[in-house]
C-alpha cells in the first residue's frame, strides 16, 4: 500500500513537472498602439521562443515554473517579464521605440537573427529606411526601394516594374492588407501606388515561398497598412514638387477603435492647365494626374475579437479637351472633342481576427480588388441654322480590367515552442474584361449603341494550404508545407499540388546553411507589349488553350549576423524553371482590338539562375545595404526567335546597389543610393537587305522591298545603367510637431542612361542610332511635417 502511494506521488510530481501552460497575447507599440509584426518573444539565453504573426499575436506553451520572458523588435527597447507560470495566461507586451532613448545608438534591438530563421530569400525593409532613401522628385516609393534589392530588376529607367529572379511583371503577388494589387503603377509606371505614410510593414519573398502564399511564380510583396494610432490623433504630410500628401490617424471614441486615412495627389495638371488654355486661346485644356486614398478602421471588440476594414483607391487620368466654334453664312457650328485615358485600382479588405484558444488564432478575410483601364474619345457637333439645331454625339470607349472577390480563412496554431503551424484556404472569384469596345452615336436625342469585343471571362480559383515551421533540433529548423490550388474556367478545371520546403542548419555558432525548394502555379497572365507596367497591359486567365504558368525554384545559401550583430549577411544561389509563359506573337500587339487575344500569343518556357550577395544594416546611425546579383535569364518559345533560346528582355548579368543613410546629428540625415546594372537586352535592326518575291499574290507590286535584319532576339545590349541619388534631410523638432526639409538629387552625376533607342539621321543626313535618356539630374525639394 505504501509502495502504491509512493508511486502515485511520484507520478503526480512528474506530471506536475511536465505540465505546460500557454502564454499568449499581442506585442504593440507604446506610443501608437500599432501591433508589431514578427516581433520576437523568447526566453533569454535559450533557443525557446516564437514570433508574432501579421496581427501582432503570439502564443508560447512552456513548462510550469518561474520564467523570464522577453519581447524585442527592431528599433525598440527589449522588455522582460518575470512570470510564475502556474496556469495559462494572457500577456501583452508594449514596447517603446528606441528613438525615445537619450542615446541614439541602440544596444539590444534585434529580432530573430537571420541565421535562426528557416525562411530564406526574404527581405524586410523598415518603412523608416524606405523613407530615408533619396527619391525621384522627392516622392518616396516603396516599389523603387524594393528594386534596389538583389535579385530584383526594375525594368526600364524610372519605372516601378518588378522583375524578380528572371520572372515577369505579372509573377509578383503584390498584397496590400491581403488584397492583390494588379497594377501598382502611377504616371505610366514612374511612381508606385503605395503611399509610404500609410504603410507599416513591407516584406519581399523571392524564393522558398511558405505554403500560405500562392498564385504567382516569382515573388510575394506583402505590404501591411498601419492600423492607426490608438492613443492620440497624429498625422504627417508633405508638400513636394509634383505632389502633396497628408495622413491622419488616431483613436475613434475610445482606444478600442482607431483609424488612419491618407491621401496623395499630383498637381502638375493644375499648374499647367492655365498655360495650355492661354496657348490655345481658351479652346483647349488637358492634364495628367493621379491620386491615392488609403483608409483603415479597426475595432477591438474584446481581447479575442478584432475587426479591420481597410481600403485603397487610386486613379490616373490623362485628358485633352478641345472646342472649336465658328459662324458662317448664318450657320453657327460648335464642335467639342475629348480624349481621355484613365486607369486605377480599388482594393478593400474586411478582416476579423478571433482567438479561438490561446494556441489557435483565426483570421477571416473578405477582399475585393479591381483594376480597370479605360480609353475614350468623344466628339460632339452642334449646328444651328435658322433656329434649328442639329446635334450629333459620337462616343468610343475601350475598356479592360480584372475584378476579384476573395474569401479566405487562415489559422495560426502554436502547439508548442518547436512548432508553428499555419493552415487555411480561400476562394477567389475572378472576372476578366479582356478588352471591349463600346460605340454610341446620338443624333437629336436618338441614339444607337453597340459593344464589340470578347465577353467577360469568369473563373474561380481555390486554394488550401498547411505549413509547419518546426525545430527538430536546436541546429535545424524547417518550414515545410503544401499549397494546393485549382482553377475553374470555361468548363476547364486545372489543379496543382505544390510542395514547399525551406530549412536552415546552424553549422557554426554564427553561420547557417539554408536551402529551399518551392513549386508554384499561376492561373493568370499579363499580356504586355513592353513589360513596363503600361495601363494597356491586359490581365487574362488560363483557358482551355492557355495553360497555367508553372515554376520550380531551388536555392542554397549561407547567412549570419556580423560585426557585433549589427549587420545581416546572406549569400544565395538559385535556379528557377518556368513553363507556359506567354508573350505576344511577333508582330502582334494590344492595338489589334479585333480578334481573340488567345490567337495573338505564344507559349514558352524560361530559366533563371544566379547568385545574390546581400549585407544589410537596419539600425544605428548608419543604415542601408549593399547588394550584388550575378544572374542569367533566358526564354524559349517555339515560334519566337525561330524556336531558339534567347535572353529575356530584363536579363541582367551584373547588378549592384548601395543604399546608405547616415544620421549626422539630430538635425541632419544624409542618404545616398548608387546602382549599377548591365544594359538591357534589345532587338535592334542591324542590317537591311532586299526581299525576295516570286510573283505570287501580286507580291511583285510591293513598292518597298527592303527587309530588316535583327540578328537574334534581344541580342543587342544597351549601355550599362548606373546612377547616384543623394538626399539630405534637415529636421527641426518643435514643441508640438517636427518639420523636415528634404533636398535631393536624382541621377546626381547626370548619367545619360538608355531608355530606348531609335534610328534617325544626323546633321548631314546620314543614318544614325540615337539613345534617349529620360532623366537628367533632377533636383527635388519637399517639406514634410509630423505631429
Amino acid at each position, binding site marked *: 500500500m505504501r509502495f502504491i502511494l509512493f508511486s502515485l506521488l511520484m507520478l503526480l510530481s512528474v506530471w506536475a513537472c511536465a505540465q505546460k501552460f500557454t502564454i499568449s497575447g499581442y506585442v504593440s507599440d507604446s506610443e501608437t498602439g500599432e501591433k508589431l509584426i514578427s516581433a520576437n518573444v523568447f526566453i533569454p539565453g535559450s533557443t525557446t521562443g516564437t514570433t508574432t504573426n501579421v496581427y501582432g499575436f503570439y502564443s508560447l506553451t512552456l513548462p510550469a515554473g518561474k520564467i523570464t520572458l522577453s519581447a524585442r523588435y527592431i528599433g525598440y527597447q527589449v522588455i522582460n517579464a518575470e512570470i510564475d507560470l502556474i496556469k495559462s495566461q494572457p500577456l501583452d507586451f508594449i514596447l517603446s521605440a528606441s528613438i525615445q532613448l537619450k542615446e541614439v545608438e541602440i544596444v539590444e534591438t534585434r529580432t530573430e537573427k537571420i541565421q535562426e530563421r528557416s525562411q530564406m530569400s526574404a527581405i524586410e525593409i523598415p518603412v523608416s529606411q524606405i523613407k530615408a532613401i533619396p527619391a525621384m522628385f522627392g516622392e518616396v516609393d516603396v516599389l523603387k526601394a524594393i528594386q534596389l534589392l538583389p535579385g530584383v530588376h526594375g525594368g526600364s529607367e524610372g519605372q516601378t516594374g518588378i522583375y524578380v529572379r528572371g520572372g515577369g511583371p505579372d509573377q509578383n503577388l503584390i498584397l496590400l492588407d491581403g488584397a492583390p494589387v494588379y497594377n501598382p503603377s502611377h504616371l505610366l509606371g514612374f511612381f508606385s501606388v503605395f503611399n509610404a505614410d500609410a504603410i507599416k510593414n513591407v516584406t519581399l519573398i523571392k524564393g522558398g515561398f511558405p505554403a500560405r502564399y500562392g498564385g504567382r511564380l516569382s515573388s510575394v510583396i506583402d505590404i501591411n497598412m498601419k492600423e492607426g494610432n490608438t492613443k492620440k490623433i497624429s498625422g504627417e504630410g508633405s508638400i513636394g514638387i509634383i505632389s502633396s500628401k497628408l495622413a491622419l490617424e488616431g483613436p475613434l471614441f475610445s482606444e478600442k477603435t482607431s483609424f488612419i486615412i491618407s491621401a496623395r495627389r499630383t498637381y502638375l495638371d493644375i499648374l499647367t492647365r492655365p498655360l495650355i488654355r492661354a496657348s490655345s486661346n481658351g479652346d483647349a485644356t488637358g492634364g495628367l494626374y493621379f491620386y491615392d486614398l488609403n483608409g483603415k478602421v479597426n475595432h477591438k471588440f474584446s481581447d479575442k475579437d478584432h475587426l479591420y476594414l481597410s481600403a485603397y483607391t487610386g486613379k490616373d487620368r490623362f485628358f485633352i479637351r478641345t472646342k472649336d466654334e465658328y459662324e458662317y453664312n448664318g450657320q453657327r457650328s460648335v464642335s467639342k472633342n475629348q480624349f481621355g485615358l484613365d486607369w486605377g485600382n480599388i482594393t478593400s479588405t474586411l478582416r476579423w481576427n478571433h482567438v479561438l484558444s490561446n494556441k489557435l488564432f483565426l483570421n477571416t478575410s473578405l477582399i475585393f480588388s479591381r483594376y480597370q483601364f479605360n480609353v475614350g474619345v468623344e466628339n460632339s457637333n452642334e449646328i444651328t441654322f435658322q433656329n434649328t439645331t442639329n446635334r450629333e454625339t459620337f462616343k468610343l470607349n475601350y475598356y479592360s480590367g480584372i475584378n476579384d472577390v476573395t474569401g479566405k480563412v487562415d489559422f495560426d496554431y502554436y502547439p508548442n515552442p518547436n512548432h508553428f503551424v499555419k493552415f487555411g484556404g480561400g476562394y477567389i472569384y475572378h472576372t476578366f474584361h479582356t478588352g471591349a469596345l463600346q460605340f454610341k452615336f446620338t443624333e437629336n436625342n436618338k441614339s444607337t449603341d453597340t459593344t464589340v469585343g470578347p465577353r467577360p471571362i469568369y473563373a474561380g480559383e481555390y486554394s488550401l494550404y498547411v505549413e509547419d515551421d518546426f525545430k527538430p533540433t536546436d541546429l535545424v529548423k524547417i518550414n515545410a508545407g503544401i499549397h494546393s490550388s485549382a482553377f475553374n474556367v470555361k468548363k476547364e478545371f486545372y489543379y496543382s499540388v505544390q510542395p514547399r520546403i525551406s530549412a536552415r542548419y546552424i553549422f557554426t555558432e554564427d553561420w547557417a546553411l539554408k536551402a529551399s525548394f518551392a513549386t508554384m502555379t499561376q492561373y493568370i497572365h499579363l499580356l504586355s507589349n513592353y513589360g513596363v507596367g503600361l495601363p494597356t497591359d491586359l490581365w487574362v486567365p488560363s483557358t482551355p488553350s492557355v495553360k497555367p504558368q508553372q515554376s520550380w525554384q531551388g536555392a542554397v545559401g549561407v547567412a549570419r549576423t556580423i560585426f557585433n550583430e549589427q549587420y545581416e549577411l546572406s549569400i544565395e544561389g538559385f535556379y528557377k524553371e518556368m513553363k507556359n509563359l506567354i508573350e505576344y506573337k*511577333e508582330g502582334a500587339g494590344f492595338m489589334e482590338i479585333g480578334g481573340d487575344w488567345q490567337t495573338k500569343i505564344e507559349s514558352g518556357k524560361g530559366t533563371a539562375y544566379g547568385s545574390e550577395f546581400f549585407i544589410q544594416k537596419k539600425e544605428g546611425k548608419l543604415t542601408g545595404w549593399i547588394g550584388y546579383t550575378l544572374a542569367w535569364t533566358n526564354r524559349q518559345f517555339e515560334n519566337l526567335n525561330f524556336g531558339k533560346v534567347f535572353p529575356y528582355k530584363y536579363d541582367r548579368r551584373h547588378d549592384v546597389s548601395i543604399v546608405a543613410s547616415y544620421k549626422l546629428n539630430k538635425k541632419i540625415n544624409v542618404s545616398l543610393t548608387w546602382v549599377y546594372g548591365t544594359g538591357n537586352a534589345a532587338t535592334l535592326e542591324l*542590317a537591311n*537587305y532586299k526581299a*525576295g518575291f516570286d510573283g505570287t499574290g501580286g507580291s511583285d507590286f510591293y513598292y518597298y522591298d527592303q527587309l530588316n535584319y535583327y540578328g537574334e532576339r534581344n541580342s543587342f545590349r544597351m549601355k550599362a545603367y548606373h546612377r547616384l541619388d543623394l538626399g539630405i534631410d534637415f529636421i527641426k523638432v518643435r514643441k508640438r510637431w517636427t518639420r523636415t526639409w528634404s533636398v535631393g538629387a536624382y541621377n*546626381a552625376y547626370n548619367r545619360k542612361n538608355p531608355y530606348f533607342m531609335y534610328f534617325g539621321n544626323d546633321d548631314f543626313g546620314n543614318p544614325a542610332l*540615337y539613345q534617349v535618356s529620360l532623366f537628367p539630374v533632377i*533636383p527635388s525639394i519637399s517639406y514634410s511635417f509630423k505631429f
Partner: protein
Amino acid sequence: MKSNFFLLFFISCLISLSSCRNAFDTVVEVDLPKEEPRLVPNAFLQPDSLFTVEVTNSKFVLDSASTKPILNAEVKVFENGILLATLINYGNGVYKGISARPFEGRIYDLTVSAPGYPECSGKAFIPYRPVIKNLTFRDSTYSNNNTFYGEINLKFDDPGSENYYLIEVVTFDSLLETYIPVGFLKQQDSDIHSEDNFTTRLFFSDEKFNGRTHEIRLYLPANGGDAFIINNPDSIINPVKKDYYLFFWSVSKSYYNYTLTKDLQFDTQGNPFSEPVPVYSNSSSKMGIFAGKSLTKERIVK
C-alpha cells in the same frame, strides 16, 4: 544655422549642376558595332522552270548606301554532292541555269560566292505538286453582313508528310502579261490555321489533316472586285469576261516560313506597338531564302 548653411549649399550645388551645358540633353548618338555586308540569295525554284537565283548584298543599317545586285557572283547548284549547274549572270543580280531544271521531290544544294563577301549556301526542297480531286464553284452561296461570296470547293489528297500549301485565285492580265490575284480570299475551315483573313493568298499547313483527303471551301466577295464577274458575267460594271484560275501551290517549309515572316515584317514596319518580326532565312548568311514550290493550276468553271 549650421543646417541652414548645408541646405543652401546643397541647393546651390544642384542649381549649378542643372545649369551645366547639355545637362538636360537626353538624346545622344551611340555607336553600333558594324555589320559587314553579306550575300543575300533569293531563290524560288519550281519544276519546269530554269534554276534562278537573285543575288544582292546586305548593308549595315547605318550605311547610307543602298543594297545592290551582285554582278560578279558564282552561283552553283549541286544535287547529292554533284555539281548540276553553274548559273549564268542574266544581269541585275539574277542568275539562271542554261538548261538544268529542278524536279519535284528533290533537294538541291546551292552555293553563292562573290569577291569581298563570305560565301553563303543553303538547301532548297522542291515539293510534289498537289493533287486536286475535285474543284467546283457556286455563286453567292454565303452571306455575311449582307456581303455575298462566291464559293470555291476544293478537294485534294494530302501526302503523309509535312506539307505546306498556298492558294490563289488569279486572272490573266493581258496588259501586264501576268496573272494577277482577284479579291480577298476568305475561309472558315477550322482545320486550317490561316495566317491572315484579308489576303489574296491563303497559306496553310497540313498539320490537322496530314495524310488524308481534305476539302476546303473558299469564299470570294461577290459584290465587288473581279469576282463579281463570275456571278454576273453580263454586269455593266465590268462586262469583260475573263478566265479565272485556281493556283494551288505546294510549297517548301522554308518558302512558307519566309513568306509569312516577310509579309508580317512588311505589315508591321514602323508600328511602334508591335514586337520586331525577324524574317526566316535558310541561307548561311542569315538573310535570303532557298525555297521550292510546285503548281497545280485549274481553270475555274461555273
